[in-house]
C-alpha cells in the first residue's frame, strides 16, 4: 500500500499536486481522484483540506480564538464545545420523495446536481437563467464539483429543514475518509469575504478541515460566540441554526466525495411540517428503513 502526502502548487487556476509515493513522485491535477501514474487513490477535497498551508492557518485561527478567551470558566465551556464537536454528524436534509428514492434499493445512488444536469436536460441558454449560473462550486472544486455531495455538521442529528423535512444522518465510518468541512456555505463565504469567482483557487487558507479536524474548525469559528449565558443545550443551535430564509442559515458545510447509498445512512429524523410528509410516504419509509436496520424518528 503506497503512502502519499500531497503538496500543492498554485499556478493561477492550476492546482497540481505531487504524489509522494517514493517510486512515483509525479505531478498531476488535484481533480484526478487517483494518481494517474501509480494509481494511488485519494479524495481531492480531503487533500485540499490537509495541505500544509490550510492546517497551519486553521491552527493559527484556532489558537487565536483560544487566546481571546479571558476567563477560565469560559475556557472550560469552549473546551466542552470542542469535545462535543468531535462527535458531530454529517446530515443531509432532503424532501421525503427524494429520501424514499434513496431508500428504494441500495443500488440507488445519491447523485449530485451537476451529474444530473450533465446526464439529463441542460439549463437553457438566455439571460433569464443567468441568476442560477452564479454557482461557486466550479471555482471551489475545480473539475470535481460533480462528485461532491453537500451536507451540514450537526450535534443533534437535525439538518437544515429549509431544504427538506427529512434529516439523513450519515454513518461516520462510511464517509470519514472522504469528507472535509468548510467554515460556512461556500457561496456565502465568498460573499462575506468579498472574493470574486476568478480568485477562488486562492481562497484564504484556514477555513476548511478534514473530517477528523472538524472540531478545530468549529472552535475557530464559534468560540467567539460562546459567552456566560451559553449553556450546553445551546450548542446544537450554535453550530447549526436554520434561518427564516436560506440566506440566514448558519452552519458548517460538509463536503463528501463520491456516491452515497442507503447503506451509508445511520438514522433518519423526520420533522413534520404542515402537510409534509404524507402519512403514506412516512409508512413506506418506516418499512424500508426497518429492512436496513436504520432507525427512524418522527418529530
Amino acid at each position, binding site marked *: 500500500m503506497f503512502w502519499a502526502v500531497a503538496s500543492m502548487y498554485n499556478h493561477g487556476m492550476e492546482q497540481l499536486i505531487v504524489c509522494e509515493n517514493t517510486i512515483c513522485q509525479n505531478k498531476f491535477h488535484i481533480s484526478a481522484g487517483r494518481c494517474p501514474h501509480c494509481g494511488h487513490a485519494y479524495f481531492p477535497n480531503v487533500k485540499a483540506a490537509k495541505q500544509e498551508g490550510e492546517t497551519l492557518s486553521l491552527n493559527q485561527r484556532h489558537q487565536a480564538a483560544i487566546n481571546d478567551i479571558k476567563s477560565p470558566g469560559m475556557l472550560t465551556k469552549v473546551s466542552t464545545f470542542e469535545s462535543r464537536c468531535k462527535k458531530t454528524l454529517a446530515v443531509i436534509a432532503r424532501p421525503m*420523495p427524494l429520501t424514499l*428514492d434513496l431508500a*428504494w434499493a441500495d443500488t440507488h445512488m445519491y447523485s449530485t446536481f451537476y451529474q444530473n444536469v450533465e446526464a439529463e436536460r441542460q439549463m437553457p441558454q438566455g439571460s433569464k437563467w443567468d441568476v442560477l449560473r452564479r454557482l461557486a462550486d466550479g471555482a471551489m472544486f475545480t473539475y470535481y464539483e460533480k462528485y461532491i455531495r453537500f451536507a451540514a455538521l450537526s450535534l443533534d442529528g437535525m439538518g437544515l429543514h429549509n431544504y427538506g423535512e427529512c434529516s439523513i444522518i450519515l454513518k461516520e465510518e462510511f464517509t470519514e475518509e472522504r469528507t472535509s468541512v468548510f467554515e460556512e456555505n461556500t457561496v456565502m463565504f465568498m460573499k462575506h469575504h468579498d472574493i470574486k469567482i476568478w480568485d477562488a483557487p486562492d481562497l484564504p487558507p484556514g477555513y476548511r478541515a478534514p473530517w477528523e479536524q472538524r472540531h478545530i474548525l468549529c472552535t475557530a469559528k464559534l468560540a467567539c460566540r460562546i459567552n456566560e449565558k451559553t449553556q450546553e443545550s445551546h450548542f446544537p443551535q450554535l453550530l447549526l441554526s436554520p434561518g427564516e430564509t*436560506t440566506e440566514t442559515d448558519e452552519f458548517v458545510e460538509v463536503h463528501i466525495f463520491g456516491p452515497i447509498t442507503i447503506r451509508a445512512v445511520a438514522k433518519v429524523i423526520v420533522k413534520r411540517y404542515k402537510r409534509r410528509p404524507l402519512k*403514506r410516504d412516512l409508512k*413506506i419509509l418506516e418499512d424500508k428503513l426497518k429492512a436496513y436496520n436504520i432507525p427512524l424518528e418522527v418529530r
Partner: protein
Amino acid sequence: MEAVISGKAGLAMLIEGEQTRILYVQDPEEEMVVRPEDFRYYFQGVGDLLFLEDVTRQVAVDSLQSAYKREETRRYMGYLFDPDLQTSTRTDLAQHLETQWEIIPGLEPEFYSRPIPRENLAAAQAICTETGADHVMAFVNNLVALQPSIEKVWWAWEQISPDLFVKKPDEESPELKSQKKSEFEVFAFQAGLFGDMALAVENGKLALFQMTALTKANHYVGPFELWGRKTIIGEWVHGPGLSTTGKVAEQEREERRDEPKKRDPKNRKKRRGKKQPNLSNREKAENVTKQKDAITHAIESGNLDRAEKYLADLRRDQLGWGDDEFFAKTLCHLAMIAKEEGLFQLQKKLTEESIEVNPRDAWAWAQYGDALLRNGHLTEALETYERSMGLGEDVVAMCGRAEVLKAQNKLDQALAAYEEVMASHPNAVVAKTGRAEVLKAQNKLDQALAAYEDVMASHPNDVVAKTGRAEVLKAQNKLDQALEAYEEVMASHPNDVVARNGRAEVLKAQNKLDQALAAYEEVMASHPNDVVARTGRAEVLKAQNKLDQTLEAYEEIRKTFPFNQIASNGLACVLAVRGQTSQAIALLQNLETKKWRTSHEWSGLHILGMLYLKTNQVHMAMDIFQQGLDCPRPIEVDYFRSALALAQLKRGEIAAAIQTVDTLASNDLFSDSIRLQVFATAGETEKAYGLHHQLIQSPVLLMQEIVREIDHRYLSKTGAGYSEAWLIDKQCTLLFATA
C-alpha cells in the same frame, strides 16, 4: 416569472426578477425566499428538471402537480413489489394507485426492464385481488406474463463480456470495462431497450428489435461513448436462451407440423374413413392463388377480420409445406394491395412478417422499407433500404432510399441518389420522376416541369409524370392549367386517385370550396382509406370554418393513421382555435426532438412554436424558431423567421425583430401581419402605413382586428384597446386558422 420544476423532489423554484422562492407541492400556498445559489442544494439527487420561462405562478404550480403525480405513481408502482414493505402499506399503495389508473399504462413499459421475483409479483397480485384494484391488477398481470421474456433478456445482457465495450480490451482495466458496460446499460435502460427487447422476445420479433435498437444507439446524444454498439446489440440479441427470427419461425413451423389438424365437425361424415391426399405442386399453387385472391378481395372490400382469417389459413399451409420463401413473397404481394388501399399499417404488419419469415429476401426488405416510409418511420426506412441493397436488391431499394432522403428533406442527397440510379439504369422511370419530384421540392419549378415533360416524351403513358407535371403547374400558381392537366389524366385514367385528389386540391386553391369538398368525398367513396382525400376534406372543412366537423374528420383520420402528420397538424390548429392549447401541444411535442423532419413535420414544429408563444413559454418557442431557420425548404424557413420576429417582439427585442423581418421573403398573410406589428412597434411608420393600407382590406376578419389594434396602439395612437398579450394571441390564432 421563470420556474424550475422537479416532479421527483416535489418542489418548484420560482424566479421573479432578483427574487427566488421555493414552494413544495404539498403546500403550494407556502413560499420561502431563497438564494439563487440554493438551486444546487434543492436539486441535488434530482434528474427531472423542467425549465419554464415567462409563466404565471398558477402554470408553475399546475406543472409541478402534474409532474409530481407522475413521479409519485412511478415510485408507488415500484414499491408495490417491495417485500420490505408491510402488507398494510402495500395495500394502501394499491388503493391509491387505483385512483391514478390513467397514468399507469404510460409508465408500465419501464417495469419491463428488470425481472421481479415471482413471490413479489404473487404478493402484489394477492393485494390487488384483496383491494379490488382492477387496473393495478391488469398492470401486475401483464408483468407476470412477460417475466420469462424479461428474465431471458436480462440474463443475455449479463452474459455479454465487458471486453466488447472498449476499443482495445487487452489494454484497458477491468474497472474501465465494467464502467463502460454500466454506461451502456444506463443508455439501454433510458432508451427503453430492455423493455422493447422483452416484448420482441415475447412476440418473436428479435430481428426487428435489433434494427430499432441499433438505430437508437446510432442516434444517441448524451454523455456516454457507446463503443461497439453494433456488436454489443448483436451479441445481446443472440444471447443464450434467445431465438433469432429464423429460429423462432423454424420452431413455430415445427410446432405447426406436429399439431394435429382440427377437423370441421360438418365434414366429419365425409372424411370418416377417408385419407387426405398429398397435394401436388400444381395443386398447392392453385390453392395458394385462390387463397391470395380471397385475401385480396377481403382487403379491398375492407373486411380485415376476414383477410386475417384467410391469411392464417394460408400461413399454415405454405409454412406447413416448407414454402417459407414463397410465403414471404406472398406477404409482400398482399402488402402492396394494402398499400394501394391506403392501409399502411397493414402494409407494415405484412412486410414485418415477411422479413421475419425470410430475413434473406432482399425484395422483402425493400417492401418493408416502403412500409416504414409510408408510416413515417424514416430513419428505420433508410436503414432497411440500405439493408436491402446489401442483400442485393437494386433499383427498387436505391429508389426507395432516394425517396426516404427526399421525405427527410435531404434534397441534395435525394437528387444525387436518383441521378445515381439513372446513370446505372437509364430506363428507370421511377428514378426520373423521383428526380423531378425532388426538383419541385427544391422549388426549381421550371426544371421540374421540364423533367416531367421529358419523361412524358419518352413514356407517354406514364401517369406519375402526368400528375407530377400537373402538380408543378399548381405550385407555379397556374391553377387553370393545373386543373386541365389533372382532368386530362382523369379522362384516360378515371380511377387514378392522385389525379382526382390533385384536382380537388386545385379547386380548393381556387377557393371553390364546395366543389373541392365534393371532389374529395368522391375519392373517399371509392377509396375510403385514402388518407390524402381524407385530410384534404378536413382542410376544406376548416377553410369553411366548420370547426366541429373538422375536428371530427381529423380525429377519425388519426384513428386509422396515427402517424399522419397532416392530421396531427390540422387537429392541433383546430384545438388551438378552440382554446384547447394543452391538448394541441401534446399532439406535437414529439417533433421537438426529432433529428430529421419531413416537410409536414417542419410545419408541425412551427405550429408547436406558436403554441408555446401563445402560452407564454417564450424560451421554448424561440428554441423552436431558431431550429426552424435550418429547415431545408426556403418557404418554410420564412414561416419560422416571421414567428421568431414575433417572439423577439414579445421579449422586447425590437432591433432583433426588425433585423429578422428584413430577411423575410414571403408575402403571405401571416408574414405581413408580423411585419406590420414589428414596423409599427419600432416606429417605422412609413413602412407600417403601407402594410396597414393593404391589410385592412383583407377579407379575413381576424386580420382586420389585428390591423385595427396595431393602428390604435402605434400609428394613429388613439390608445390601445387591448393588451400586447392579446395582440400576440391574435397573431397566433391567425396562424392556426389559416395554416
